[in-house]
């Protein structure tokens, strides 16, 4: 029995470029997002390599200080606003959310398409305003430094706000869809944890983004009416800007990480083939994190001259973000106990995530502790910490999710061996790049430095070499994924034997997701009751059913 591509699928129907440009199909919109964020990730990643190359030695290596400052600004702004924030919710989330709850689409398909266009417009606007006025402020745009670069703060905040609007659209869509369009029988506690995470994320998006609008309004008032708000020359308070900035951007950090936690829950359950441990604890910990995320912004400002009382309160609350995060990690570990662990590429990413994200989380404790933070603030320790969380966390989870849903999205299987090697190279390269940066930082190396005192050189060089390996890893992943689109084998409905609903439709899915109306048959993690017979499908692909390893599969791919 050999599988063929289902005739009626969303990739093939309807036809023509125009049908993609005006599509209301959440799956296609997800792919549009996927294409856009991949492009931005490649650009910002390339900038990162430039940064690391410049830092190989003190003094000028490949660019002068001004260029360097613009490059790291562009790297940060693109990665944060154009890549990470939309990566999981807008690209993967758009694709899987309706499928996972058995819906035909999101609640407001037109709004969904609008969000993509707003995102593209906002991205172009933001990049243009950075390039046009050669912005070199870092992605945080702190006043008053940023006000010396002409009107760039206003246009950058406007850019972030436009992008934020696209997040709000996606957020509203997800909230309403989850409330109104779940398949019959799918109660809240039968929702996959990915949905809980996306739901919590959507709440933050809708509530936090308006703060950007307020900031924007204040900036405009100051600039055009001369009301002193942030600019010390007008009697304003530059630190106030930092409060506004972080009041949005700290919750935004959780917009970036919460959906990643959702993906990991799915991967751990599916590839452990076991009922997830502590379902309710994981679900509620997402909401707890979303809630606390609004109350910790000033922990970015412990050295800004804020009052000691404020510092104490913010330090105290900050520590409590750690608890729900720890709860999730231990629940995942316990899920793996007495399980049946299948170490496929997505699972390799999930384990890699636990390793890296635990480091990211634990190093956060150093920064929450006031006296230690004074020493570490604005050093490479911070740089390492947030890369462990954002990249070791979100990007690794994103890749795990991408490899998990790839067969569903495109109906194609990628080369499993290449997948694992790619995951391993990225893991090694990542640690080589960022582990030394913790030491650099605790030794006192400040961030955003174009040059540095000689003592830091060996660790900087090591970190740079690591980043080159990391870059190669990403290129490899890109190459074999593209390869699979053309030469990959046809994927069955449920290659992983997963119990969530998106695996009950064809790969790739029907334009309306499911051919029939869905009714919930079993919970998303009922691996104690339900067994999907996927062995036949697997044998057909040359998988050895006793070891779960890919067998002649690769050769037969080569023959084709």
């Amino acid at each position, binding site marked *: 029995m050999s599988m063929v591509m289902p005739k009626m699928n969303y990739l093939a129907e309807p036809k023509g470029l125009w049908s993609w440009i005006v599509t209301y199909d959440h799956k296609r919109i997800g792919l549009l997002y996927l294409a856009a964020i991949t492009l931005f990730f490649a650009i910002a990643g390339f900038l990162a390599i430039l940064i690391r190359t410049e830092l190989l030695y003190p003094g000028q290596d490949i660019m002068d200080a001004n260029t360097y400052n613009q490059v790291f600004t562009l790297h940060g702004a693109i990665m944060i606003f154009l890549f990470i924030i939309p990566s999981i919710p807008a690209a993967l989330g758009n694709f899987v959310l309706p499928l996972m709850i058995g819906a035909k689409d999101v609640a407001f398909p037109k709004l969904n398409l609008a969000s993509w266009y707003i995102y593209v417009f906002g991205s172009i606007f933001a990049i243009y305003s950075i390039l046009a006025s050669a912005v070199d402020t870092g992605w945080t745009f702190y006043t008053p430094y940023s006000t010396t670069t002409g009107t760039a703060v206003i246009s950058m905040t406007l850019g972030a706000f436009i992008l934020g609007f696209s997040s709000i659209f996606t957020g509203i869509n997800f909230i309403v869809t989850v409330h109104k369009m779940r398949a019959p029988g799918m109660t809240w506690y039968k929702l996959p944890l990915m949905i809980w995470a996306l739901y919590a994320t959507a709440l933050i998006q809708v509530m936090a983004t308006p703060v950007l609008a307020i900031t924007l309004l204040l900036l405009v008032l100051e600039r055009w009416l001369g009301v002193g708000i942030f600019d*010390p020359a007008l009697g304003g308070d*530059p630190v106030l800007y930092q409060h506004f900035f972080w009041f949005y951007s700290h919750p935004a950090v959780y917009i970036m990480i919460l959906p990643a936690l959702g993906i990991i829950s799915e991967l751990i359950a599916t590839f452990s083939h076991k009922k997830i441990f502590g379902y309710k604890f994981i679900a509620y910990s997402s909401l707890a994190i979303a809630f606390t995320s609004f109350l910790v912004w000033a922990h970015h400002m412990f050295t800004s001259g804020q009052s000691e009382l404020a510092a104490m309160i913010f330090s105290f609350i900050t520590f409590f973000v750690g*608890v729900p995060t720890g709860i999730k990690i231990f629940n995942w570990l316990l899920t793996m106990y007495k399980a049946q662990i299948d170490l496929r590429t997505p699972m390799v990413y999930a384990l890699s995530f*636990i390793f890296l994200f635990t480091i990211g989380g634990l190093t956060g404790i150093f920064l929450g502790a006031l006296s230690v933070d004074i020493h570490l603030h604005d050093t490479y320790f911070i740089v390492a910490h947030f890369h462990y969380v954002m990249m070791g966390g979100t990007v690794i989870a994103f890749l795990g999710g991408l490899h998990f849903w790839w067969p569903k999205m495109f109906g194609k299987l990628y080369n499993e061996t290449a997948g694992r090697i790619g995951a391993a190279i990225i893991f090694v390269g990542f640690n080589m790049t960022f582990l030394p940066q913790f030491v650099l930082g605790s*030794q006192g190396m400040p961030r955003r430095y174009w040059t540095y005192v000689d003592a830091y050189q060996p660790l900087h060089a090591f970190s740079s070499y690591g980043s080159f390996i990391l870059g190669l890893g990403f290129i490899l992943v890109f190459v074999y994924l593209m390869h699979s689109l053309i030469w990959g084998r046809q994927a069955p409905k449920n290659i992983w034997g997963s119990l969530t609903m998106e695996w009950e439709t064809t790969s790739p899915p029907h334009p309306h997701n499911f051919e029939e109306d869905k009714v919930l048959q079993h919970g998303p993690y009922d691996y104690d009751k339900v067994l999907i017979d996927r062995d036949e499908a697997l044998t057909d692909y040359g998988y050895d059913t006793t070891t779960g390893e890919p067998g002649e599969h690769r050769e037969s791919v080569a023959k084709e």
Partner: protein
Amino acid sequence: MENEGTVWLPPANSTIAEDVDGLFYWILDTSIIIFAIVILLMAVFTWRYRRRGKDTLTPAKDHNNFLEALWTIIPTGLIMVAFFWGFSGYMKMRVMPLEGTEIKVTGQKWFWSYQYEEGANLTNDFAVPVNKPVTLTMSSADVIHSFYVPNFRIKMDVLPNRYTKVWFEPTHEGVFDVFCTEYCGQAHSEMVGKVHVLSEENYAAWIDSVSRFGEDLPPAELGEILYVKKACVTCHSLDGSIVQGPSFLGAWERDIQLTDGTTAIMDENYLRESIINPRAKIHVGYQPVMPTYQGQLKDYELDGLIAFIKQVKQQTGQ
């Protein structure tokens, strides 16, 4: 007292550093233990429960309130230790000593200046006595900077329109790096100074000499020293190359094109105005980034600089 740096931390050279390091290592050790537990469990389970054949049903055990309580309560307890320890250390940093040396610090693109009560006025490098508390009252002349001495474990933002304070008591003699840690533009990474910690006698002699420094030197010689000490060197070269500002080579008595369309001649008055009030006249082709030296140079020091700039012309004119 321990004064060697470790892999993790630079040498601890102030009274508060030990407490900070203690907490740092406590968190590090605790984290390593927690991390080891997580990774060990993960590795053991991945190996022990690996998939060995066809899919089968797996046990339904999916919650355990005792375990959930355990891994909620233990971490909460641990972070409370970190919180209180960190807060108490922070309060020690924030309560200013009542006595000791007081220095006024100004951060400016892209150098630090230090104004002593004794009258001395220094740029980038400054000195303090060992084992005596020092209080810095800081403000910025332009954007936000941040004053950081890794070996002292202190850091404080330096803001325009507002004073912030930081204090330390050095415990060892030596020379330590001062970094700016709040991004402030092009030469942010070169906004690096040194703090010299001197013994009590050396400090007394030093402060005496810098307070009256240069009065007895020939003006041009004093100017040459100030050219480096006052950071003119970061922006003005002596060999004709253009850094941020025009080179001093052959500058004397040259015609200068100004952005307002007029011309000026580089004479004593133009020089003086350029240094005291640099925004008044801007040389065509340059950004108005030169900081003002108003209040930072005494009259005889200005004379010295002027004499020196004159001489850059003479030397090369030969």
